[in-house]
């Protein structure tokens, strides 16, 4: 099932889906599985599996450290795909790969798409790959029903949004604010206006991320976006409270 169809189906039952985030191999692959179980229990709809990279320049401090620690522990791409394979088999949510373009480039784009497909992945988010540079990858992806998740941002002009919209497939990731991952964003009128502006240029579902931390953020997005993307806040919950902390975090979100 394609990402778009999956999201459309789920949206029948829920006004706002949730996409969560896991850094492969951090703090360990066992911990990843435990986190995914908790997410499954909490009714999470989509999960980004971040393949660690040595130069995570679009990430904030928490994810930077997670990337570093994971690599220091010896995490390989094989292990990341293996986690993805296990998770897509075992859990009901859809999984997308998140990472940096070099991971893909170094492997070769065709091979990347094939391995992603084999592992049951539905798409990928590559924050440092602009659409100008993604023709080959997008073409290969389309053939395999893998969706590139395009980012739209507060600094994108209408003209740019049109270009981005034209390339969008499966899900668009609206970046709620400037900056890197982590920190807090006010889900205020400006965010809502941005989402509405983005809607004009794409027909695929819209996810909103960067700085979502609490129930109120979800409320603000409900009826405006299709998916709320939760990254740093969940990792923070795990770091401070372990599995129970993560459980409590999702509980507070969804109740």
């Amino acid at each position, binding site marked *: 099932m394609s990402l778009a169809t999956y999201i459309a189906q789920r949206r029948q039952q829920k006004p706002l889906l949730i996409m969560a985030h896991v850094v492969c191999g951090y703090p360990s692959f066992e911990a990843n599985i435990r986190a995914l179980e908790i997410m499954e229990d909490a009714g999470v709809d989509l999960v980004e599996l971040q393949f660690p990279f*040595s130069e995570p320049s679009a990430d904030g401090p928490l994810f930077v450290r997670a990337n570093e620690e994971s690599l220091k522990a010896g995490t390989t791409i094989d292990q990341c795909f293996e986690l993805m394979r296990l998770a897509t088999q075992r859990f009901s949510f859809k999984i997308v790969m998140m990472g940096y373009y*070099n991971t893909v480039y*170094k492997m070769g784009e065709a091979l990347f798409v094939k391995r992603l497909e084999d592992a049951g992945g539905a798409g990928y988010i590559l924050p440092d790959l602009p659409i100008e540079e993604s023709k080959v990858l997008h073409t290969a992806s389309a053939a395999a029903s893998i969706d590139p998740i395009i980012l*739209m941002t507060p600094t994108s002009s209408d003209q740019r949004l049109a270009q981005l919209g034209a390339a969008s497939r499966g899900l668009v990731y609206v970046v709620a604010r*400037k900056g890197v991952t982590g920190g807090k964003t006010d889900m205020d009128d400006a965010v809502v206006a941005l989402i509405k502006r983005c809607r004009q240029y794409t027909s695929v579902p819209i996810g909103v991320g960067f700085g979502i931390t609490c129930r109120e953020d979800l409320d603000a997005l409900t009826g405006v976006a299709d998916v709320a993307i939760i990254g740093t806040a969940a990792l923070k919950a795990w770091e401070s409270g372990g599995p129970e902390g993560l459980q409590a975090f999702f509980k507070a979100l969804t109740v």
Partner: protein
Amino acid sequence: MNIFDFSEGREGYYGEYGGVFLPEVLHATIEELLACFRECKSDPNFWREYVELLQNYSGRPTPITHLPNLSRRLGGAQIYVKRDDLNHTGSHKINNVMGQGLLCRRLGKRRVIAETGAGQHGFATATMAARFGFDCKIYMGAVDVARQRPNVFWMENLGAQVIAVEDGQKTLKDAINECMRDWVLNMADTHYVLGTACGPHPFPEMVSWFQSIIGLEAREQIMALAGKLPDRVYACVGGGSNAIGIFQGFLSDDNVELIGCEAGGLGAGSNLHAARLAYNDASVGVAQGFKTYFLQNDQGNMKETHSIAAGLDYIGVNPIFSYLWEQGKVRFEAATDTEVKDALRLTMRTEGLIPALETTHAFVTAIKEAPTMAKDEVILINQSGRGDKDIFTIADALEDHKWKSFIRGKSDQYQREDN
């Protein structure tokens, strides 16, 4: 040969290298920068203002110095040195920085950020910011902060805020990542003054353009001094800005051989070096906003690098060089830490010059090759910086005992004063 004529390929690409690989949120910023740069490049007044600024503020044109003693001693080619060490702030970095200062003013921005490795680029940027009245934040790997403290001291005293980056290898590449993180948040009022001919387009082209002033001057000067074009031109290659700067004076001269000199660190096979092209340990990848040869593992993660010279200690290389190297237009060699120490000693004693450790890599290669050349052949070395800034590193490298006991005495003095 005009490497910046993109009419037959993709703009910002040199062969398959270069490009723009940045978060979408920077798209508009890069477009704005590109437009402004194009405007500057086509405006003869801009270049004139740039040259004047460097003349009046930084002492350009820097001279070319003949090294009769070293040449005689080596018994081969006549060695000449382009003296960019005489620039204000002590290196070629000021050229690029002053150019970007003018451009930043034209962009209407009032804050600059910059990464720095050796500290030279940070020092230059802090200087430029003081002069232009910009706010300034410098990102510097924590390891580099430790080994280049004098430069940090000056940056801070020039009014810049220096951030020690504790991520990753804590060197130049990590400082670049941190700059990107600042930029994606503050692009509205902030210009990122990238310090070398790397990163996303238009930086390689822009930095090369500003640094081309070295080659423009050098070509004319060496013709006047030596009466002919040089047979070989040597420059050290960190990111690759001083090298592309001087090489541009000779790119169209088929008989001038261009040699880029990288950091051999502990040597080929040691895995502790930063020789991207000379040692063939690197492969093509995409990081820090552009595509080039990187020292990376098979997973696409960057390797640890090492050099005695902080300013050469970098994973990637000017994408233009990846292209020119494959085209056979530029030869690449590496100099090891040990060779650098020896060449530095020799250069100081025979000619009274103190090249920066970075620069000394170019001297090493020239010194190796000069004896094999004819007496009427001409070598030109680009002295990208002066070694004064490296006193701690050089004193450590040369194991200077008097220096060590001086530092101990200073430390004791501070201890006493604080009690």
